[in-house]
């Protein structure tokens, strides 16, 4: 993620995928409103997954990663900072652009608010879990597709509660429970994923 274009690629991917759905499903706003939470969340999931293989690959090729392994600071802390900065350039833009896309699909204001909130809580979890997968597939042939195979099943709980939060708001049930669970996932992932990713990197660089 050293170039501005790479940030924009992920963002454009997100926008294009969401825009494809009305073309595939049809322009009826009722249908679109119904599928909007799921569509936006699946698209965000795919977009953040696509940016994952660049999380460590540049550092891997120029040898920075080996220096990180030798550094005095624990690797998991360095990895956590890498994940956070990766989220700032790949996850946060998705969160910021999502209200526009939500409006495009006919969502109301309450729904959009919860969508932004759920994405803000959920996309860091995606980056954290994805970091373990990115560490494991580092330098492996066909790593990109393999990475998606490893990581997507693990993303399912985040998808369920992220999209579920928006749907619950739209149907008037309230999103409190969903959002609390997303926050719990975030805390759990913050605790375990940096350590898991650091272990994965050690295995890959062994």
């Amino acid at each position, binding site marked *: 993620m050293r170039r501005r274009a790479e940030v924009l690629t992920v963002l454009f991917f997100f926008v294009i995928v969401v825009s494809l759905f009305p073309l595939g499903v049809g322009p009826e706003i009722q249908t679109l409103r119904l599928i909007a939470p799921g569509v936006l969340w699946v698209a965000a999931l795919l977009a953040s997954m696509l940016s994952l293989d660049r999380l460590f690959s540049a550092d891997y090729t120029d040898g920075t990663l080996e220096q990180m392994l030798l550094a005095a600071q624990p690797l998991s802390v360095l990895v956590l900072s890498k994940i956070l900065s990766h989220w700032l350039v790949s996850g946060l833009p998705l969160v910021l652009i999502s209200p526009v896309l939500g409006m495009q699909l006919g969502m109301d204001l309450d729904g959009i608010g919860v969508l932004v909130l759920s994405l803000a809580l959920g996309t860091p979890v995606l980056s954290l879990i994805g970091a*373990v997968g990115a560490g*494991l*597939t580092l330098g*492996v*042939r*066909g*790593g990109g597709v*393999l990475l998606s*195979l*490893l990581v*997507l*099943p*693990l993303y*399912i*709980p985040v998808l*369920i*509660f992220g999209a*579920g939060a928006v*749907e*619950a708001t739209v149907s008037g049930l309230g999103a409190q429970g969903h959002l609390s669970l997303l926050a719990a*996932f975030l805390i759990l992932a913050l605790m*375990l994923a940096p350590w*898991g990713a650091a*272990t*994965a990197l050690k*295995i*890959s660089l*062994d």
Partner: protein
Amino acid sequence: MRLFTKAFWLQLSSPKVFYPLAGKLIPWFAAISIILTLAGLYVGFFVAPTDFQQGDSYRIIFIHVPAAWMSMFIYVLMATYAAIGLIWKTRLSSMMASALAPTGAMFTFIALWTGAFWGRPTWGAYWVWDARLTSELILLFLYFGYISLQAAIDDPQRASRASALLALVGVINVPIIYFSVKWWNTLHQGSTINLNKESSMEMTMLWAMLIMTFAFWAYAIVAALLRVRVVILERERHSDWVREMLGGAK
């Protein structure tokens, strides 16, 4: 007694000692598996009574339920072997983990496939987005991920350690996935078909199911041992004992 010393059990973790032992165990478990399968199928098809609601179509559960049990059990077992291999760096444990994966994936697939055949006459559809079906499908994806990661890495050491870590991440996630899917399923009112059957099952049905479970157990042991023997030969091919044995066999 030699059997009760610690050294006797520890030496089993050496591939060299385990290889011939596995070879001796395979015929026994194969025989157990065949006998129990025949017995279980006989009880299931001829002794167990016809269900008053589902007719004879329910009889597929004698394959379906044991397969579903095995699919979950093997994943946990695989993760346990993987953890032991990762922590104590015992070669045989990682070999066992990789030997178990295809069998587990096969049982998951059988559970899904037979479930579809059972669902058609009972629910009127081959596939329903029920919580158990969905989690079983995700379990299949997890197996696929494990197998593909192992296949993609050339260095066997790195392959077994990387896939071991993946299995551990998976095993932490399995309960989270299961309960998420369950909650997701109850929130969406579309397919509220309740799978929870009453537990007042006919004794012979239960017996047939248990016998089939033990038959599948024995089969899984045979398949894993056969596969682990191949893995041992492949990874230890440069060691003296493998060369000696293969040279002697020729």
